């Protein structure tokens, strides 16, 4: 059934002279390129593009698309990444000509509709976060982290407080310490307790006037709401520091609580995890940030303002850290998220979070007897189970389970993150999955854990490519397909 011919590399399918389209003869006098361009701008030979007819291009790409999984084809409980379903109406909304065909160099007067939507998006994100100022510019979540930390650095420079440290719990996303280092801070690791919460004694030991920011993910990467959040924020604020909320898990608390209300001074959103937007594939993404009033002057310029019924771009921000992205950010991604926010409305967004939490807790209760959850029997939108006992008793690793799930038509959960849980299996079903899908997933998991270890070590058996040798791939990468 699998078409192995048309899924060869497109360069291997190429034959000289084959074309998808033939252009008519030129009806104006042709001139030699050498007359028009300086010699340094001319290539010695044409680029080696594949020469393939139209039907073969289509067959190639359509067949390739069937060799992988997507949330449109398979259950995809990839914890942390929140592979939630993207309603197709949001794609159509973002593709409307009034949005898709405008140019960022048009005058404000000719793009009032676009500016209105972006203004409303700023307002919506502020309302959801409980923080009064917003920048839509950052191009991804981690870029939002970096931007917010640059805003914090500008704030501390401006008030003449030289602070050098950023605290991150040991179960933070790796992007947190990386962003801190990129922004010029020293990233200091905070311990978490066996329950998965911030260790308050370790916080006190490391917290002083040199700490600029504590970055916290709440709900955390373990799918737990930090019970001491207010206390942590109060202690950091008492020393003059700021709280950064990694908003990766906002999909668990929409309309239920707000970071601005539990002590955050700034946060980013991952619109594709919380609302709607393209997942993976390297983007494009968006990572809008919201901050308190005292940090607002340092946000990247421009920001969309409303005056009467007119919308305009405000560049008059003398304390701004400057641009972090061309024009207004990745507007197409923001439009999808805006369409999602408006189609759900306040009550609908709250139901999204309630169902995300309900689904995760239901699945946790179905699988915990074979995959125990060290941090307890309740969770928010995701949970981190441990395959430690299976590894010890049956020689089945988290990776074996992940790979074998592919044979059953289920995308693997995230494994081996966070690093604080041995043989971690991080499951996030998202809010749109039915009880039947969750039950089917639990049944598949039981079946897999009853299989013999060798079958699992050799899995997956049914995919186009079986298990790659990750060590060899990292140590002796082959970077060309043929000599």
């Amino acid at each position, binding site marked *: 059934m699998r078409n192995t011919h048309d899924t060869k590399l497109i360069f291997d399918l190429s034959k000289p002279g084959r074309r998808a389209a033939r252009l008519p003869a030129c009806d104006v006098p042709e001139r030699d390129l050498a007359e028009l361009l300086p010699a340094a701008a001319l290539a010695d030979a044409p680029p080696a593009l594949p020469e393939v007819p139209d039907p073969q291009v289509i067959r190639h790409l359509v067949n390739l698309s069937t060799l992988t999984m997507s949330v449109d084809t398979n259950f995809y409980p990839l914890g942390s990444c929140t592979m939630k379903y993207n309603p197709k109406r949001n794609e159509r909304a973002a593709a409307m000509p009034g949005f898709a065909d405008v140019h960022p160099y048009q005058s404000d007067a000719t793009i009032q509709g676009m500016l209105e939507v972006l203004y409303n998006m700023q307002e919506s994100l502020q309302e959801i976060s409980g923080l009064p100022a917003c920048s839509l510019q950052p191009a991804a979540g981690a870029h939002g982290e970096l931007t917010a930390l640059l805003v914090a650095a500008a704030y501390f420079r401006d008030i003449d407080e030289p602070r050098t440290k950023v605290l991150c719990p040991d179960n933070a996303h*790796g992007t947190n310490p990386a962003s801190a280092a990129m922004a010029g801070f020293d990233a200091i690791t905070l311990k978490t307790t*066996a329950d998965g919460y911030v260790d308050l004694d370790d916080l006190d030991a490391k917290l002083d006037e040199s700490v600029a920011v504590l970055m916290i993910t709440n709900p955390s990467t373990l799918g737990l709401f930090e019970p001491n959040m207010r206390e942590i924020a109060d202690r950091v604020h008492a020393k003059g520091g700021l709280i950064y909320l990694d908003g990766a898990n906002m999909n668990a608390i929409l309309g239920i609580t707000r970071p601005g209300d539990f002590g955050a001074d700034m946060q980013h959103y991952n619109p594709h995890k919380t609302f709607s937007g393209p997942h993976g594939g390297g983007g494009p993404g968006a990572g809008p940030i919201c901050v308190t009033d005292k940090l607002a002057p340092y946000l990247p310029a421009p920001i969309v303002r409303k005056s009467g019924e007119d919308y305009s771009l405000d560049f008059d921000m003398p304390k701004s850290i400057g641009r972090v992205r061309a024009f207004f950010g990745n507007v197409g991604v923001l439009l999808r998220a805006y369409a999602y926010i408006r189609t759900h409305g306040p009550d609908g967004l709250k139901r999204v979070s309630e169902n995300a939490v309900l689904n995760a807790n239901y699945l946790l209760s179905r699988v915990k007897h074979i995959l125990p959850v*060290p941090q307890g029997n309740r969770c928010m939108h995701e949970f981190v189970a441990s395959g430690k006992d299976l590894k010890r008793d049956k020689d089945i690793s988290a990776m074996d389970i992940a790979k074998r799930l592919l044979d059953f038509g289920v995308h693997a959960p995230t494994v*081996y993150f966070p*690093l604080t849980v*041995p043989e971690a299996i991080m499951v996030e079903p998202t809010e749109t999955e039915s009880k039947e899908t969750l039950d089917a997933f639990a049944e598949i998991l039981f079946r897999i854990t009853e299989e013999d270890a060798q079958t699992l070590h050799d899995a997956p058996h049914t995919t186009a490519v079986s298990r790659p040798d*990750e*060590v060899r791939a*990292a*140590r002796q990468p082959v970077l060309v397909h043929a000599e």
Partner: protein
Amino acid sequence: MVKPEELLYAKTHEWISVAEEGGDKVATLGISAFAVEALTDLVYIDLPAVGRQVEAEQPFCEVESVKAVSDIYSPVAGEVIAVNETLPDNLEILGEDPYEQGWIAKIKITDEAGLGELLDHAAYEKLCSEEAH
């Protein structure tokens, strides 16, 4: 033959042994078997340059596995006088013989204050069993 029971350990999972070499105190340093197992399959080690000055309890070397990149810390301040050049191309040594063939660096100690913070083998074993919770 190096016995793990006779080494000292840092809370960050390095082992260390101290010996006199030509009138200087020299620390030989590696990472524990527990650390190697927790890191899983190793793919890369970034050795420090010989001659580099290291500070106590600061990272001076990196090891990368298929899971993550981890820092290696020096418990003492001093100067790197030798590194195990065979490791980068033979990372399996770290798993097979972490306490002898798998040594990572030798550091001429200039400030041994950090030595007092180190754990003996029994205390380190206890730490590992707690971390494996």
